């Protein structure tokens, strides 16, 4: 990658306040051109309480503004008032469809701050659970995304198969969604009896199911027409806008933190980073489908090689990390999930900043939708794979 010299999307034109546009509307009698329409916060396709103010020319989108914060719970403020251990369950409530990834990021960040490392056995189980969670997150994305575009059937298929993953989670830690699976320094629970068998069964179960999803969609003419060339974003624009995850990869940038700056023990596993070429909705779909398969590949390797040993590193009962700060990020299903933790030497973090992938990715909605039709806005919101719990925190 060379630093791009050309001017990318002019940042100043991003998300301008729409009120000015409304005021400047031409007040002639036959003014049929501009329509300002409010989508959400209660709307079936905004995946939660996202409000999008659209400025339309007929059905063509001239610009849009996202209004977020309806689900703001002040997670970062809560962190400052809890101990490191007590805050751990809260991170599950941000990206609640990928709670395991959130937990992994937080635990690793605190471990870094404490300068401890989880033992290998814990690392392997962490990777298995995280990758399972990636598949679950992508499945949920696929189902809802296809539903937004009008195909209702994939939703039920993906939810049926996601159920198997949630069952494994439930058996492992007793919770299905907000798992709180990891502890700082390792794991609290040893893998249950038959965990490996369950995971292996799941792999052989879900492989043909992914083919099944693809059969329904990949070559479906209407699906192709609805997704090809829709919501195109270039790699340069992605980088300028900080967009990460499958969206960035679909735009042709081969970058995955699991490879670039390996955490956990991802460097021990073989897998490929899928990339797209056109950066459109279809490529993002393909990239995520391949990612599911690659995740299976990682799980396969991990489940074969789980070493014996302890699952918890030596961490003090009362955690008082030395004064300092750390930024640690992982590749969550949606993109780069970062934790910036400042410690003042006490039991509570002085400041926890979460760098949420959904929040940053959502910012690209504006330029991805310009010039597209209303129906494409739905497709683009779907393809960005945002979770409002994480956007608003």
């Amino acid at each position, binding site marked *: 990658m060379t630093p791009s010299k050309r001017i990318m999307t002019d940042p100043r034109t991003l998300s301008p306040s729409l009120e000015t546009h409304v005021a400047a509307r031409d007040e002639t*009698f036959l003014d049929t051109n501009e329509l300002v329409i409010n989508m959400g916060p209660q709307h079936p396709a905004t995946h939660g309480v996202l409000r999008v103010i659209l400025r339309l020319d007929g059905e063509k989108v001239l610009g849009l503004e996202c209004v977020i914060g309806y689900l703001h719970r002040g997670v970062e403020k809560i962190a400052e008032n809890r101990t490191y251990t007590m805050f751990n369950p809260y991170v599950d409530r941000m990206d609640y469809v990928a709670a395991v990834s959130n937990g992994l990021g937080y635990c690793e960040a605190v471990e870094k701050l404490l300068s401890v490392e989880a033992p290998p056995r814990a690392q392997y189980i962490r990777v298995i659970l995280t990758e399972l969670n990636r598949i679950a997150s992508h499945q949920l994305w696929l189902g809802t995304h296809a539903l937004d575009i009008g195909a209702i059937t994939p939703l039920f298929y993906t939810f049926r198969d996601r159920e198997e993953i949630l069952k494994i989670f439930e058996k492992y830690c007793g919770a299905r969604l907000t798992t709180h699976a990891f502890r700082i320094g390792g794991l609290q629970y040893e893998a249950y009896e038959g965990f490996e068998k369950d995971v292996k069964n799941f792999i052989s179960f879900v492989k043909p199911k992914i083919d099944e999803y693809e059969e329904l969609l990949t070559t479906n003419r209407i699906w192709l027409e609805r997704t090809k060339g829709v919501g195109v974003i270039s790699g340069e624009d992605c980088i300028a806008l900080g967009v990460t995850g499958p969206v960035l990869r679909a735009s042709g940038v081969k970058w995955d933190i699991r490879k670039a700056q390996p955490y956990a023990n991802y460097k021990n596993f073989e897998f490929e980073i899928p990339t797209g070429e056109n950066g459109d909705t279809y490529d993002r779909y393909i990239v995520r489908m391949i990612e599911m398969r690659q995740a299976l590949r990682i799980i396969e390797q991990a489940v074969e090689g789980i070493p014996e040993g302890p699952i918890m590193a030596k961490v003090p009962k009362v955690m008082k990390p030395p004064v300092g700060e750390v930024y640690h990020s992982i590749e969550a299903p949606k993109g780069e999930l970062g934790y910036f933790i400042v410690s003042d030497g006490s039991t509570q973090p002085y400041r926890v900043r979460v760098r949420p992938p959904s929040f940053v990715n959502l910012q690209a909605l504006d330029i991805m939708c310009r010039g597209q039709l209303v129906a494409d806005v739905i497709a683009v919101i779907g393809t960005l794979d945002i979770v409002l719990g994480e956007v608003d925190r």
Partner: protein
Amino acid sequence: MNPNPPVATPFFFYLLAAVMIIGGILVITRKNAVHSALALITTLLAQAGLYLMLYAPFVAGVQIILYAGGIMVLFLFVIMLISIERNLKERQFNHQWLIGIAAAAALGGLFIAVYTTTTQGKVLFPAVGRLSYVESGNTQGIATLLFDRHFGTYMFSFEIASLLLLVAIIGAVVMAKKRI
């Protein structure tokens, strides 16, 4: 052959005519354009009923499919796009009462004159004459008039009319499109 009691009774005529007139008045008096359009649709449907009374079902069908179902939908389409609030504030009448009344009176006088000269001593609905036209031959009859290897009298004019419509369509496209 046709044991049906005739539908072309004065009762139905007056009913449909009344509907048409009321509809017509509503079209020009309603301030809300959508209401006007709906009234116009009622008028057109009543007119289709009159065609049926004349044993011209094909014309009635075409009236419904083209005017009520096609053109009026486009009217509504355009009206709906126009902001209603502003529309209501507009003055609908351009205060040409005198000319309007004069024209209406002249037209009414003409009707009365025609009526009195042509139906002297006769009833309005004669039992014989055109009304005995058999319904079941109407559509085929029109087809024969328009196109037949031997009697296709109006073939050329029909095609000319469709050509005119084509010209109108192209004209509309040229005017509407900023860049061709």
